């Protein structure tokens, strides 16, 4: 099932896993995580988020940010903080 993302000004777009992984990867690199580890973390977070989105046809970009940050928290507290509070865009 495709999940639709409702953005801040009510515009919508399809959920893009690659885009999410890119932003997680960037957050990990920003806290000096080695590139290989950042890639693995991004994949793990994307997998967990995909499971969360399984039964959700539509969520907001804010939901994505909060939940991805919560999943990322388990692997890297610093990266999660950066991802949640800084403009690494999804």
């Amino acid at each position, binding site marked *: 099932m495709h999940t639709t993302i409702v953005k801040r000004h*009510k515009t919508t777009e399809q959920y893009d896993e690659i885009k999410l992984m890119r932003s997680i990867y960037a957050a990990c690199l920003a806290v000096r995580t080695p590139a290989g580890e950042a890639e693995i973390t991004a994949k793990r977070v994307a997998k967990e988020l995909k499971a969360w989105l399984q039964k*959700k*046809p539509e*969520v*907001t970009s*804010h*939901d994505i940010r*909060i939940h991805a940050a919560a999943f990322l928290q388990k692997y890297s507290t610093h990266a999660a903080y950066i991802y949640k509070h800084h403009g690494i865009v999804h």
Partner: protein
Amino acid sequence: MAKQTYDYDLIVLGSGGGGSVAALIAAGAGKRVAIVEPGEMGGECPNYGCVPTKSLLHAAEIYDAAKHAQQFGIRSGTLTYNYPSLKAWKDMAVYRTGTGEGKRLYEAEGIKVLEGEAHFISDHEVTVNRRHISAESFIIATGTHSSIPPIEGLEKAGYITFKEAVNLTRPPKSLFIVGAGSVGCEFAELFSVFGSKVHLADITPRILPKEDEEVSELVRDTFENERGMEILTNAKVLRVAKEGLAKRVYFQQGAIEKSVKVDEVLVATGKLANVDIGLENAGVEYTPRGIQTNEFMQTTARNIYAAGDVVGPYNYTHTAIYQSRIAANNILHKQKVAADYRAVPRVVFLSPEVASVGLSEDECIKRDMPIKKAIAPVAIIGRANTSNVERGFVKVIADRHGVLVGASIVSPRAGEMIHELTLAIQMRLQAADVANTIHAFPTWSEAVRIACSKVAKM
């Protein structure tokens, strides 16, 4: 400035006791109302909770009474049961609650029913199956789901919760129940009556840990000596492993690790609130235990109210209905009503029934509250003689001025008897007021009068 227009005046998330009552009240007041329900109409209570368990327990009570009827001169041939027929009886009881009518009941009242998961997009808008609907006010009554403890091997070996337990087509030959609260105890009673060997385990030192100690002791004694159960208190379940078609449960009591082989494992370790509905987008604060509300059932978002199990502090249909009525009133009227939990009756449907209201003795001690308490055994009253009942008691607790603050009853029909004391606590009556009220002879409620009379004399 022009007033913002919305699709509905009120959208209610959940059609259980916490949601449906408010929806009907608001619709009756001429408001445009919608209910969003992702599961069965009516929610947990009529489909998986109170109604199916009580209908099965009623059948169990009759079966058990028939087994022991010889003492009253009643003889029968072979006494058996047919569990699929019992399940059919339970299904009929569930159907008769109106859940079988589905959404037609609500639509007849002018309420729009939307089937699907609701997810907040903002404080005035939810998405349901990608359809955006807005409302001036919301009531969140999304209920709870079973909290499954992280026990090694449990997922792999398999387990059931109350949802599956009410739909079994035969009782398991042996059953390990994790959690000896009210749900665990009711299923322990049900399946033990129908012949299952029940092992009832809890991590706390006693079963029914929220009740007074005397209640726990009497229920434990009944379970062990009359129902043949194994009661495992202070027991921590370590792991579960599949063993052929059966399951082996490993648990620790004190420093000793033990194990037992059973047909089925029932997990009854509490509930968690259904809060994964985009509450962050609406500014509603919550914890995994529930949504935070003030005494008016209003959440941290001014136009969003919450009621029922998703709020707590009690997981009962009657408290959900009470909160739903309060939420509806506070949405519809300027004169706000606050929730008052001083006299919430609680019933565990065992045989004999267990009922309590108000403060327990432990709670009084925690509050450093000087109390007067008295216990009247039901064995001393006329009705116990005519029914040949020896077990049970009424315990009442009053403050130092004799005003009733709490009560516990273990007795046949305790669930009915408790309401006299509920009213007394709600109206801040003294124990003497109840003691001076005429109680019919021979009724179980005479024990209430005797217990109150003892406190009044202190």
